[in-house]
């Protein structure tokens, strides 16, 4: 009993001293809570569906950010991992009859392999070369998909996959929990030592090499990690839509994830996730003007980028939070003195 009280008090203390002091942390907390409580409040299958799809794309966008935002290995063919994850889950599910809790992780592992297949040759490429070369991979795979219609179903794709669950609410919780967990893992990874090295590789690869760090290893690790999570997103997508088709590999898919991430602010993980949860519902909202839907979407993206080229969410965050000039700890912008070192904020 005492132990329980101790932990409760500790949670309370953390909440009070670490979480509730910063608006961004409050938003994240509220985001977690609202995602978990949503089905209890809203009983609208359409709305739930949008949230589920947004969750899947959130994993996808965050995985792009992990690779391209952090290490600067701009990947223009991220749909490759998504498509590989979706197709391999689908093939394993339909041909081998494996259940979804096996096919999705296996699909993600195949996507990791795809990450290596793409990553190893791409190690020598830099910047724009890498971006434009990676664009080619999903298109090449699309050619292969069409060349083996027996296995892949050609333009029809593979349909009739088993559902994640017969209940909508359970499906929702499976996907949302996977999303929350994987995004947290990705955020933790980038927040760790590995993440610092990723940052450093983007800023100056030569300097990192000179510091005696095996950048090749870290770059491949980024490719694999990113491929893994994108593969999970692909597998979830295939099982949710019950079809894995060529649309998962189209250029549109690759561009979409880049738009999400850059819109939300790269090298943050939470930026792309937030952007997906803004843009996907927004795109649905624009259904009110069906002819202008995509145009409005493009305009929103352009406008935001013109005024906030670093991404929407970091811009907002920088408005409501400020860094302490002395100890570099973030504070709520309205504070006069730093919450940790009590230095004057301005």
């Amino acid at each position, binding site marked *: 009993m005492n132990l329980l009280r101790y932990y409760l008090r500790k949670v309370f203390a953390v909440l009070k001293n670490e979480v509730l002091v910063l608006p961004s942390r409050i938003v994240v907390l509220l985001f977690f809570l609202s995602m978990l409580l949503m089905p209890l409040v809203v009983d609208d299958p359409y709305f739930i569906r949008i949230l589920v799809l947004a969750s899947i794309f959130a994993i996808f966008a965050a995985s792009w950010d992990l690779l391209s935002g952090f290490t600067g290995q701009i990947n223009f063919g991220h749909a490759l991992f998504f498509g590989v994850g979706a197709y391999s889950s689908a093939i394993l599910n339909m041909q081998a009859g494996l259940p979804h809790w096996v096919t999705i992780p296996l699909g993600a592992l195949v996507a990791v392999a795809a990450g290596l297949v793409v990553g190893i040759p791409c190690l020598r490429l830099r910047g724009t070369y890498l971006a434009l070369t990676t664009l080619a991979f999903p298109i090449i795979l699309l050619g292969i998909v069409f060349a083996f219609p027996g296995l892949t179903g050609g333009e029809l794709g593979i349909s009739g996959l088993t559902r994640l669950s017969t209940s909508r609410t359970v499906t929702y919780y499976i996907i949302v929990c996977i999303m929350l967990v994987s995004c947290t893992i990705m955020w933790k990874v980038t927040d760790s030592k590995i993440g610092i090295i990723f940052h450093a590789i983007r800023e100056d690869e030569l300097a990192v090499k000179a510091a005696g760090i095996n950048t090749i290893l870290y770059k491949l690790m980024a490719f694999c990690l990113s491929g893994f999570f994108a593969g999970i997103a692909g597998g979830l997508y295939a099982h949710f839509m019950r079809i894995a*088709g060529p649309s998962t590999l189209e250029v549109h898919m690759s561009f979409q994830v880049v738009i999400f991430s850059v819109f939300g602010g790269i090298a943050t993980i939470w930026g792309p996730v937030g952007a997906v949860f803004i843009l996907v519902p927004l795109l649905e909202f624009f259904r009110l003007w069906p002819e202008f839907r995509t145009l409005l979407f493009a305009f929103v993206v352009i406008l935001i980028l013109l005024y906030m080229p670093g991404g929407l969410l970091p811009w*907002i965050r920088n408005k409501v939070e400020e860094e302490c000039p002395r100890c570099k700890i973030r504070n709520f912008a309205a504070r006069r003195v730093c919450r940790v070192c009590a230095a004057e904020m301005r």
Partner: protein
Amino acid sequence: MKKIRSYWVILLVCALALTVSVPAWAKDTIKIGVIGPMQFVQGKGHWNGAVMAMEEINAAGGVNVGGKKMKIELVQADSNEFLNVTDATNAMELLMTRHKVDFVVGGFRTEAVMAMQDIAMEYKKIFFGAGAAHPELCLRVAQDYDTYKYFFRAAPFNSNYLVRSSFLHLQFVAGILKSQLNIPNMKVAIVAEKAMWADPMVTAAEGVIPKFGMEVAGVWRPSPVATDVTAELSAIQRSGAQVIFTIFSSSVGIPFARQAGELKIPAVQVGINVEAQKDSFWEATQGQGNYIFTMNTYSREVEQNELTAPFVNAYVERFGETPTYTADTYAAIKHSLVTAIEKAGTLNADKLVEVIRDQVVKTPTGVVQYMKDDQGRYLHELTWGPGYLLGLGVQWQDGKMAGVWPNKFKASAEAPEISYTGMVDYIIPPWVAEAYKK
């Protein structure tokens, strides 16, 4: 709290839009969702056909549901399926849960239709597919009847029958070539877009063409969205083919026809070219699509039965173009669905399924009867053949789409001759006639 607020805004606006858009007599209407790529010709066909059906039925007082007259109300949903399959499923979900439609018609890209089919089935709503030709859609019905029984094909008939129709057309055209140009050894080049639905057709064509006493000169598989096929055309000309058997559903049909016409390739085209079914084909090929033959569903001045002319004429007058097969949403609503509702006297989907699967109705394209597979399972597939739906063969003749088949067609030696009204003779392109003149 930007995120949460944006949801509430969406919720509010949607709720508002709903309350505004639903008139006071909402409870007395039958809601039909029309889903399709509304920015494109196919989706416009879906919508236009449905609008015509709605207007005609409502003008006549509505649908008699067990003694109560109900009007039809349409809900448009843009599936955007050519670009984004996820969008298509969202649109379907929107129809099901927000608009609470009673029935759905439409759908085009097979990958999207399969995904949308699943959603409609989940809500146990009757879904008439009017665009995708793949047999798989109906095989699902037979294999898992309890789940998929709410799906019916409205148009076109499935790709196996499409190809059988096309073989009849091929024989028809080859016969004319043989008799008028005296070509003893006919060579056929098979050109099919690289797509799954065309694969079995190519195999079938390779097997069947030698049986017709013709030789296969080669198989070409351009991409469905190729814009330059001069390379393929040069190779076909080199192969010495007199007939090109085309299987196109996508945009490649335009450059293929245009460039073949411009290069005066000495071979006639016959088969399926969906782009050539549209009125805009003439302009899209700059008039070079002359003499192209394709299978079709509707053509001006051609009457399959007494229902055809009123529909086609009214459609042309209203929308300024000949209907294509996606406009068969008209027949699906007016003939299949409404007839069944009036007969069953209910909107209950399960009861309606039992009526629709067994009923025989006359539509502007022929007689619709849903068939069973060889094991006697319900397939909800359109029956093909003389007396049912047979399709049409049209040829572009100097800017006009003219019906040329069936013209004195006999299914077998003893069978009665079939001719639709308004048929004209097939014309061999002059440059082809020139090339083979002895």
